[in-house]
């Protein structure tokens, strides 16, 4: 499998406070990797480091065969798309105008034909083509989150970093976002999905990277990584584990007693 992103012994932190203490992992092309772990374990810090918003304190990152440090801000935006945590602010853009902002790194002062094609493609991938002329303020939460993803897709990045993109969405809207992510990976893009939702990670992602205290506790396919013992060790919570009757993927419920 072709590797798009490789982190070796990555160390990141804020001043003297080290959050990630030697993390190594790889991301393959077309792969969706979930990053999970307790609050403060370094999930969002990892994404900020990969975006060069935090300087590396140690280790190295290789993106598409080049050291991360060799990327300028614009070049990085062409390789990596980012969907930060939280809702899009209430600005007066239409969906299309928002997605066009994603062409910043690739276009000049005005958008050309190539840019318009990329915007159309991003809208299509995020299933927003019919809502393109809608003001953002008139969208549902799920549609707004898909618009945020389309903004990142207009950058035509090889890698997409998503920070809890479904945390404030209901089940249906979460499923909409999940569909978009699956479609992207089939189209050959790779993704790193930071999430608190182990069940979402299990059913959606190819592998799960479980963080504890700034280090990798385990990394592998959901069926191998998720176990009652792992959840207890990482989160300090007793949990019960089931297998999905059809897919065989693990399902986690906290609490040692059966839930009625």
């Amino acid at each position: 499998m072709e590797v798009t992103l490789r982190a070796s012994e990555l160390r990141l932190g804020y001043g003297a406070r080290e959050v990630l203490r030697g993390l190594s992992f790889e991301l393959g092309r077309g792969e969706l990797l979930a990053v999970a772990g307790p609050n403060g374990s370094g999930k969002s810090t990892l994404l900020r480091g990969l975006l060069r918003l935090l300087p590396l304190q140690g280790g190295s990152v290789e993106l598409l065969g080049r050291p991360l440090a060799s990327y300028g801000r614009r070049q990085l935006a062409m390789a990596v798309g980012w969907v930060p945590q939280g809702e899009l602010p209430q600005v007066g853009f239409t969906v299309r105008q928002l997605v066009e902002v994603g062409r910043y790194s690739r276009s000049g002062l005005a958008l050309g034909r190539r840019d318009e094609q990329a915007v159309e493609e991003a809208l299509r991938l995020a299933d927003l083509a019919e809502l393109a002329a809608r003001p953002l303020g008139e969208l549902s939460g799920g549609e707004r989150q898909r618009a945020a993803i389309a903004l990142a897709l207009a950058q035509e990045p090889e890698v997409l970093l998503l920070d809890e993109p479904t945390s404030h969405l209901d089940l249906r809207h979460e499923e909409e976002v999940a569909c978009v992510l699956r479609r992207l990976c089939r189209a050959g893009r790779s993704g790193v999905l930071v999430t608190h939702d182990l069940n979402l990670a299990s059913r959606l992602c190819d592998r799960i990277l479980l963080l504890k205290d700034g280090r990798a506790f385990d990394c592998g396919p959901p069926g191998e990584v998720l176990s009652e013992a792992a959840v207890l060790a990482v989160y300090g919570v007793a949990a019960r584990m089931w297998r999905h009757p059809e897919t065989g993927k693990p399902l986690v419920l906290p609490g040692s007693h059966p839930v009625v």
Partner: protein
Amino acid sequence: MSRRALVPLLAGALLAALALGLFTGPGGLPDELLLRLRLLRVAQGLAAGILLAVAGCAFQAVLQNVLAEPYVLGVSSGAALGAALSIAFGLSPFSWGIPGCAAAGAAGSFLLVLAVSRGMGGAALILAGVVVGSVLSSGLLLVLSVSSAEGLRNITWWMLGNLDVFSTRPLILLWACVVVVLGGLWLSSRELDALSLGEERAAGVGVDVRTARLSILALGTLAAAATVSAAGIIPFVGLFVPHMVRRLSGSRHARLIPAAAVAGGAFLVVADSLARLVLSPRQVPVGVVTALVGGPLFLILLRGRTRLWR
């Protein structure tokens, strides 16, 4: 109102404002001289209105705050203190002294705010602006309290804002600022679009946030400092005009900036005409008119608040 109406609407407003500014008001002077005086005054009003309106757009986007306006970083207090000191120390209002000291005060307060909030985000910048502004305002009160009666009157009159033109050279300088600020902000319109989504998202699409933010804030502050130095403190134009125009032009800055420039210029020329006409032959400070007119209009906009940002 449809967005297609934007260009004819703005053109109409500008023409009406120019007509009002050039052909109304008390007479008593030879026509040619009167027209020349009014022309200078209209030119000053246009320039100040343009600067305040586009600076408001820039500050609102970069600080992601709908309440941001050109004086948000304490510039007006710094300028007022500079001007008050120069008046208290007896510099003539007809020379470069007052505008020069006001500009120095504005620049000083901006640099102080930047230094205090270094390395922190937009919220810290606004807080630093408010605090530095209050401290400088207290300094202003101190100067006022020890001023002579005439000094007090001159300082107050200056602070209320007026568009009297005493010579053409400061006016030329003001228009040079218009070219720099308007051009610079229009060329930054894609950065402004991205920054209005927040600094993290702007960095994500490839904007060098620190450089872009600093250059845009510097342009906005240059606009505020130039207007304050030339015409005193003129409130509400930088707050009200961007909000009003955004509803017609949309939020994309490539359209918003030029539209706000035209609307801001026209608004201030109309406000200044009212200032000359309402109590004619007495003059009302234009800052009083912009607040009296802009305030209620802003409240009307606020009633349709959900549409403010659409």
